[in-house]
């Protein structure tokens, strides 16, 4: 194997990319014109665009989750924040005299995002200030948040009829779905903050060794507050997208289980749940893989009652492929047990 090819195969994003390409090719076989993209009414249309469009909320939530997981934490409350943010925005818009007034919609969006920030700060306070384990601390908001969303919607599904609000999740701008643009902007901003500025180093340091980071003078509380707040903000934006796309807010079901998909996307993207090194691009690929999988399930006609099982199977395979230990076991010949024949012979079989 040439060194270049080896380096390519060893790149940490090789397997996520390979899996994504594999899934897309599978669609190519089952769906006609899967890769076809056309411009209708000045908008881009096509299955690939749809994957991006429907995957946008997950990409946002997973982005926030990446930073939280990098600090060796976890945020289970993102699904509830999605519901609360959507519910609050829709409630305010539904109370507007003119639901299409830009000012009113902007105000509603602003209030929803501020509440998301507050919810994130609450999580951060529990984790960094009081020192509750992240899984428990965010579980509180995961459970209580659903109730809060119910309270806001009054137990009903609030429907709105606002073209301005519809733009966020269902609209287009410069031929592109607006959601994609939002994801791109947030991603760019996050990458800037973490990689061009030094936030990423501090996050990885806190996740790698919290006590050593404290002794190195890192304000780990501030770092934790920042990531939990940021994560909730991402979830809040995703909540706006989801509710805007269907022009309604459902406190019960909006963003249900999205935290698990987001965690999965982060893990598929190669960020360790133990914290430390994180990869934003990996997470984006992970989220796309999950969304492509969902699309694939519909396009290849998996019977509805077995979709979850099918998804679980694919995810298992993906995770196994990602694991170097598993690959070593399957793709190379098993190493021989004690007292086996000469090593020289074994070496040949390994390099071959």
């Amino acid at each position: 194997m040439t060194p270049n090819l080896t380096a390519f195969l060893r790149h940490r994003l090789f397997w996520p990319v390979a899996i994504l390409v594999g899934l897309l090719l599978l669609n190519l076989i089952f769906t006609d014109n899967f890769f076809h993209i056309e411009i209708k009414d000045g908008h881009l249309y096509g299955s690939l665009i749809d994957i991006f469009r429907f995957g946008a909320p997950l990409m946002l939530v997973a982005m926030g989750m990446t930073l939280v997981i990098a600090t060796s934490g976890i945020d289970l409350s993102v699904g509830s924040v999605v519901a609360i943010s959507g519910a609050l925005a829709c409630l305010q818009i539904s109370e507007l005299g003119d639901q299409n007034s830009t000012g009113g919609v902007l105000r509603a969006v602003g209030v929803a995002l501020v509440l998301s920030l507050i919810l994130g700060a609450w999580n951060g306070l529990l984790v960094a200030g009081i020192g509750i384990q992240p899984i428990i601390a965010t579980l509180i908001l995961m459970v209580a948040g659903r109730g809060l969303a119910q309270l806001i919607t009054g137990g009903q599904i609030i429907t709105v009829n606002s073209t301005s609000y519809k733009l966020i999740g269902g609209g287009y701008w410069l031929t592109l779905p607006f959601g994609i643009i939002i994801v791109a902007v947030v991603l760019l901003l996050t990458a800037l903050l973490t990689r061009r500025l030094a936030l990423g180093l501090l996050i990885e340091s806190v996740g790698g060794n919290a006590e050593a980071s404290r002794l190195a003078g890192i304000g780990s509380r501030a770092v934790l507050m920042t990531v939990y707040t940021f994560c909730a903000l991402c979830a809040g934006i995703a909540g706006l997208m989801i509710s805007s796309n269907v022009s309604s807010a459902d406190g019960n079901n909006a963003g249900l289980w999205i935290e698990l998909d987001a965690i999965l996307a982060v893990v598929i993207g190669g960020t360790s749940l133990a914290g430390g090194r994180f990869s934003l691009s990996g997470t984006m690929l992970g989220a796309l893989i999950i969304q492509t999988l969902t699309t694939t399930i519909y396009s290849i006609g998996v019977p509805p009652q077995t979709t979850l099982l099918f998804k679980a199977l694919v995810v298992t395979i993906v995770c196994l492929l990602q694991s170097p230990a598993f690959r070593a076991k399957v793709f190379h010949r098993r190493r021989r047990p004690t007292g086996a024949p000469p090593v020289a012979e074994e070496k040949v079989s390994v390099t071959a």
Partner: protein
Amino acid sequence: MAEPAPVLRMRGIGKEFPGVKALDGVDFRLLPGEVHALMGENGAGKSTLIKVLTGVYEIDAGTIELGGRQVAFASPLAAQHAGISTVYQEVNLCTNLSVAENIFIGREPRRFGRIQWGEMRRRADELLGRLEIDIDVSAALSSYSLAIQQMVAIARAVDIDAQVLILDEPTSSLDASEVAQLFRVMRQLKEQGIAILFVSHFLDQIYEIADRMTILRNGKLVGEHLTSELSQVELVGKMIGRELAELEQLEGRPPAREGAPLVEAVDLGRTGAIEPFTLTIHEGEVVGLAGLLGSGRTEAARLLFGADHAGSGSVKIGGEQVGLRTPRAAIRNKIAFCSENRRAEGLIPELTVRENIILALQAARGWTRPIPRRKQDELVDKYITALNIRPANPDQLIRNLSGGNQQKVMLARWLILEPRLLILDEPTRGIDVGAKAEIQRLVAELSDGGMAVLFISAELEEVLRLSHKVGVLRDRRLIAEIDNDEGLTTDALTETIASGAAT
């Protein structure tokens, strides 16, 4: 005396990690019934050789023969089944289980699938009895000292029909009587024909127990010698590959120094950690802290760095009252602290050497003001060269470096902050002679340059060699402050530590 056939023979062993050639054509043999010391500086390849031998790593080149048969171990378990048992520096036992359970874990005597507790305790008793250790085997392992825990680990290793027993720095946390006890056990095992591979940084111990030694340097074999035929000076020369004269330059005492008071701690204390103490450190002064383990040395240092909250007292820096409530506050006041516990309180294992070095500086600047890449390269290159960090690759993950080099990276992290007071807690523990001398020389240089250093070490010679003033701690109390003049010797210092009174 005719040599018996070696029980273990390794030939031409090679092992490469990304960017590092850890082992290169190393030969090694182990005779039955001998204690064989594996010598070398940090990073010489000792740990790698052991890991290769025990199946933790695969080898890239060479052969391993055990009892005349060629072997390749896929895992530590496979090596254990073949008769190679290892006891590591950090005891790998379950301290919450009983002694007997620890010895028989995974292979408990059973009848009809039920564990026979009585039988297990009886056999554990018998096994430890053979090593002349009489303890209650049904008590939790955590209720015994580290030395006993180590013996239990050895008992367990030996009971699995070991032909080869590897002891990787077993003595680094034992006191003198515990070491003697361990050596007694080792001699007994030797008589039973077990080959023991022994790694330690303490030369005196090597000369007391080892029959033969193999010396490595930079992943290459330097030679194999009988202990009786190689003097300590020759050994050190072979290990570090240069003359000892260089090391001895530092002999003699540092010249007395008249600087302005830099840090004045008044009645600084914390309940349960250290009694209130008063200590003044002058600019350019090296203050040594001496005392036994647990005497409060580290606790005193942590208060000065704000790592723990002080319950009482105050600190003045340059004459001004300051609050050192957090490490951040201490760093703002130009105080740096290199912890004795590198792994838990120093390294960020997943980050690179570069990132580990710039971490404290970046933290001090805040995340909104990143250090420009060019400045990073400049600083990192400078300290990699100055401290002779190997491998000299800033993008290597720090967990792939040897202990001594990791320690130098920790030093670099603090030195780039240009602190006024540098607190070093056991900076030379667990690292080899060469790196030790380099760090000692560095401390002397820094203090010449005007930096104050608080130097904590269990080795009194080292404290005496470097310090202008020695603070003696005993039972969590600073009992004496002695100027390091002609009258102070290690004996006098030992006396003070032991008697609790200044002489």
